[in-house]
């Protein structure tokens, strides 16, 4: 299979071919961290798709000729490109491979899927570009899946993305996108966690935020999540902020997500037990150790199994980019350290 890779077969090193998200999910899977099962439609599929379109009419050259300041021209060109990409048929080989991977992932029964764009430059340190591409949740069948894959590809030609690239004069030849297709997690509770304090930069604590239902409500800021701070090393829970969680995101019967009110008795109840917090701490530490730097993680607790699954992990960028002075330097005479206590304020 040249157009499809399973999570088990890739890692971070494959990012040029599977994108940031795909590489990260593969890497996590390889490190023994549970992620929702799925596959990646590699950038080669996109290249093949684009080549078929370019055979009729150039795409990349036309984009490169755009002036980022000419918003009218950019908007018109982008609308035309997106519409072409969203409507073009997939090359037969690509279509066949997606069909067969889809069947393998879903088996005989229908399964809701997430279709997530995985750009080759996304999830890298330039966080401003991250998130410009689209993710589609609770996608119901093969036809929809294929349609959303096209939409992901087409999202490369959104006004925002194109403007971003033109302003930086990035070569279009290097622009490609992989797409992750994985099963949806029907989350009882979901949220994010940081392996470094967002407020103080402390590397010895883990901040966990979560709310009832799907994580999109937390990530999208539609609910104030419960918040805990745990010592990374000892597991002591030093902060417990339980909030009033009025709504939750749930899968809609017709596909997609809907917002529902949270049952009265659950609104002010903590959405994670101490035991679940410790499980999350264990996972956070493994992921951080694996990557060797503080992480920003999206997680979900599956309703049926109670299992924790990771949806995403990326390096923390805010504190890591600051060049902090060392807290202390070794002293020629170690005893001089005590002068910080006995020497008075300086």
């Amino acid at each position, binding site marked *: 299979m040249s157009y499809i890779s399973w999570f088990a077969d890739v890692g971070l090193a494959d990012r040029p071919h599977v994108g940031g998200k795909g590489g990260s999910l593969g890497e996590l899977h390889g490190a023994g961290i549970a992620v929702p099962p799925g596959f990646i439609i590699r950038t080669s599929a996109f290249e093949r798709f684009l080549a078929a379109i370019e055979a009729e009419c150039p795409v990349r050259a036309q984009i490169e000729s755009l002036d980022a300041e000419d918003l009218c021209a950019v908007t018109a060109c982008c609308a035309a490109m997106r519409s072409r990409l969203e409507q073009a048929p997939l090359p037969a080989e690509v279509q066949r491979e997606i069909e067969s991977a889809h069947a393998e992932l879903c088996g005989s029964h229908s399964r809701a899927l997430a279709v997530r764009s995985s750009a080759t430059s996304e999830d890298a340190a330039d966080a401003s570009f991250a998130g410009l591409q689209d993710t589609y949740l609770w996608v119901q069948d093969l036809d929809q899946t294929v349609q959303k894959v096209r939409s992901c590809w087409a999202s490369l030609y959104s006004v925002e993305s194109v403007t971003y690239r033109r302003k930086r004069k990035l070569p279009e030849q290097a622009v490609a996108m992989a797409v992750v297709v994985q099963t949806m997690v029907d989350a009882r509770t979901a949220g994010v966690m940081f392996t470094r304090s967002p407020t103080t930069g402390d590397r010895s604590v883990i901040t966990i935020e979560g709310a009832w239902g799907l994580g999109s409500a937390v990530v999208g800021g539609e609910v104030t999540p419960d918040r805990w701070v745990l010592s990374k090393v000892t597991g002591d829970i030093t902060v417990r902020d339980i909030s009033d969680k009025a709504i939750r995101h749930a899968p809609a019967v017709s596909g997609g997500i809907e917002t529902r009110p949270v049952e009265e008795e659950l609104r002010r109840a903590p959405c994670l037990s101490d035991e679940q917090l410790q499980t999350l701490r264990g996972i956070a530490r493994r992921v951080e150790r694996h990557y060797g730097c503080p992480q920003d993680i999206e997680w979900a607790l599956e309703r049926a199994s109670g299992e924790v699954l990771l949806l995403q992990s990326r390096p923390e960028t805010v504190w890591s980019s600051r060049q902090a002075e060392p807290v202390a330097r*070794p002293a020629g005479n170690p005893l001089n350290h005590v002068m910080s206590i006995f020497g008075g304020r300086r």
Partner: protein
Amino acid sequence: MNRQEAPKGFPLPSSLKVIAGTERAQAAYPYTVQFGKGDDERFWFYNSMHFPEPMSCFDMVTAEAAYCALGAANTRVHCLPTTLGIDHRIINGRVYIGGNAVTDPQQIARRTEEFQKRAFYYYENWERLYGQWKGKMLALIREAEALPKPALPEFEPLEHVHQGRGIASNHYLLDTYQRTLEGYFRMWHHHFEFLLLGYGAYLTFFAFCKKAFPEIADQTVARMVAGIEAEIFRPDEELRRLARRAVDLGVDGKFTDGVPAEIVIRSLEACGAPGKEWLKELAASRDPWFNINVGDGFYHYHRSWNDDLSMPFAGLPGYIARLRAGETLERPFEKLQEERRQLIAEYRELLGSEEERAAYDQMITLAHRVFPYVEGHKFYCEHWYTNLFFNKIREFGALLASHGFFADAEDVFHLTHYELESAIVDLMNAWSTGSAPRGPAHWPALIAERRAAIEEWARHETPPALGPVPDVIDDPAIVMLWGITRESLDTWLKAGEEGASSEIRGFAASSGVVEGTARVVKSVEEIGRLQAGDILVCQVTNPTWAPIFQKIAAAVSDIGGSMSHAAIVAREFGLPAVVGTGTATSRIRDGQRVRVDGGRGIVTLL
């Protein structure tokens, strides 16, 4: 916002009145400790950590001897750059103390130079000097043990005459008394020989951790440094050992909750060889490990386990029950050591650079070097020696009581140590002249008055601090020994304003969340009221209460930091503990339901 509000301060010393009807008892304390001119300009705080109850006249010797020695070490021996000694004042039986900061930069520079010559020498030669210290301390203890029991025979023993001793027995009353007192003052010099340096090295590491890991719990730093085999654990370990021996020897059936120690001992004596064997084991544990008193050693009535076996015996049935349930009661030394190593290594790994790791290594090495003294000295000083001292004074009390000075030997503790010397001289004179001593007509009324005053004082709250609030507290001694910072003063001031809140905040000393019935124990005599599952609420928790810790569900105290021994013992027992709340004993009602969150340092009134 740039509001310039005058900070709400504490009452001035001059506004704090001696409680009506106790003026004469207050006047019994020496002039040196009465509040007076100039004291309103200084900041004072109530030393409820060491002296949580009104002090009888004699017990004030501890404040005098301790501050004499503390000040000497800081001011003259090690020359701490920014602080001299600590002054103390007494009102309504309460000890207020105030630091004496050095602020002149030239003086600080001069003292810094001296400090580095002196303190650094101690750090560099710590093991040798500390080894020597233990020798000095044991010699001092042996000296105190060898002091004769004060007695006055009707006639001088004939052998003294034949020996031509020439000095009569009455002289030895004064001699023994003065040597008793001298030994106590000397002991306190030993006590402070290393203490500030030890705490300072620990705090250096502590401050580093707080800077590198702003959200690290105090208790976690304490756990990285605390010893696993410190003396402070020994009495409780001996108790566990005795429980195991009772089961091995098959005499465990003799230990039942609520049966007094002397009855248990009598039944063991009567049950043949195994009972006698266990009593031999008991004797081995008692010397020296039962020389631990049920308080902090600062009150004459905090008797030692040796003087009053009810405390250790109260713990035995619980331990025996746990053994029968299959527990071994062994402290898993290797596991604890390994956990500590792991903790240190994992925080080290989380540091930002190799440079920081190298500094961390230097600081924790020094902290580990000094900590055995910080943890160990209390057993020798506040417990073992202090017991000997108060028991010797008790012997003088018994002698004076037998000559009609007062009704009960314990009444002697209502005399200041100066007054006691005059009473002894009175008795010496009377014995020599053959006349009646004057004391019996003098002391009983005063003692009755003073006893009543202490009872009265205990019924009144006393302000946690007096005088103007300093902008910062930069006195390492006060920060280290009492954990008092500008932030804690703000909390105290706020506590007065926000009496209605249902939360009490303190130091998170040992994590875990527990709900239960609060038992507000204001003095050590009340600990019998604690039932299994109760939450102990007290002014200052104490590690010698360890047998009680197996019974309670959590501990809360007014005073103490996360490195206090109470916190260490709570962690050892895996009990949630919140210490240093400032107000728990006054805000929590006895019998009230509370929730203790030891990981966050919060007690919630339910």
